[in-house]
């Protein structure tokens, strides 16, 4: 079983030298050679792949980040000025938009109020008729009252 594994690795290695391996196969080789127990026949190639692993340790520290962000800090404001030409106008546009909205809304509501105001005379025009009503009713009730009176009077007279 192990021998078969090594044969596979040997084949991969051969294909690696001929640049026929895929990235996945190269990752398998790297992982294999990072192990501790490697057969003597393959051991000489270990440093080649161990080097690839060691190479990952070549990194820049946090002090570089701090320095870089301090450097970038300035260009950000300088760059912001270029953008401000448009950005500075943005609040104005926003204000103009708000004013426009308020004006349209105000106009619309005014129109609505005005329409209601136009209707008022019509409503008022109806009311006199209503006023006429009660007087008619009153007249009716007066008649009723007089009828009641005559009935009452006749009752008393009886």
């Amino acid at each position, binding site marked *: 079983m192990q021998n078969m594994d090594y044969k596979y690795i040997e084949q991969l290695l051969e294909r*690696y*030298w*001929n*640049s026929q391996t895929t*990235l996945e196969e*190269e*990752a398998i080789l790297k992982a294999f050679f990072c192990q501790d127990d490697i057969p003597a026949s393959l051991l*000489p190639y*270990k*440093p*080649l792949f*161990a*080097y*690839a692993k*060691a*190479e*990952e*340790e*070549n*990194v*820049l520290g946090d002090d*570089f*980040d701090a*320095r*870089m*962000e301090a*450097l*970038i800090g300035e*260009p*950000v404001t300088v*760059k912001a000025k270029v953008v401000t030409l448009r950005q500075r106008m943005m609040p104005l546009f926003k204000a103009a938009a708000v004013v426009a909205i308020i004006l349209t809304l105000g106009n619309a509501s005014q129109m609505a109020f005005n329409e209601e105001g136009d209707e008022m005379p019509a409503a008022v025009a109806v009311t006199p008729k209503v006023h006429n009503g009660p007087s008619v009713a009153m007249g009716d009730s007066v008649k009723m009252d007089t009828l009641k009176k005559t009935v009452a009077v006749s009752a008393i007279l009886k």
Partner: protein
Amino acid sequence: MKIVSFRNDVLPLKNVLFRLALRITMNKEEAEDVVQDTLMKVWDRRDTLQDIDSIEAFSLTICRNIALDKTKRSSWREESLDQDTLEPRATSMATPYQRTEQRDMLEMVKRIVDGLPEKQKTCMQLRDFEGKSYKDIAEVLSISEEQVKVNIYRARQAVKQKFNENAEYGL
């Protein structure tokens, strides 16, 4: 519209860029300067980054060009001066490798890779150490994928041959 953030999109590339710059300049301080210049340049052009597919490939291209410029300029110096500065560098580079018995071998591999022609070692750096695809490497170097394959093939063959030679001498 995607907003490019320095901290999240540009700064994380520093280590990949640093290793490539180090491979080309073979000097830690210079490589650090190259990365700094690269990041500044990329950041200055962040308005155009939205149209670029891979910020990483774009940054690597810039990094390689700056590193090549730097090495060209420093190669004007006397060779003896270069040799003087190369030795302490080699020892300072060796310190991260903890295992002493492996250190010499890794140092040897490093010297072999560093000794390759620039195109070959750049291709090898991106493929074998950074795990980039042929397509990505082709984009970084502005050459065809076929040329990338040829460069990697030559680099691996050269490393294998030199490595075997050195190992024989060592034994």
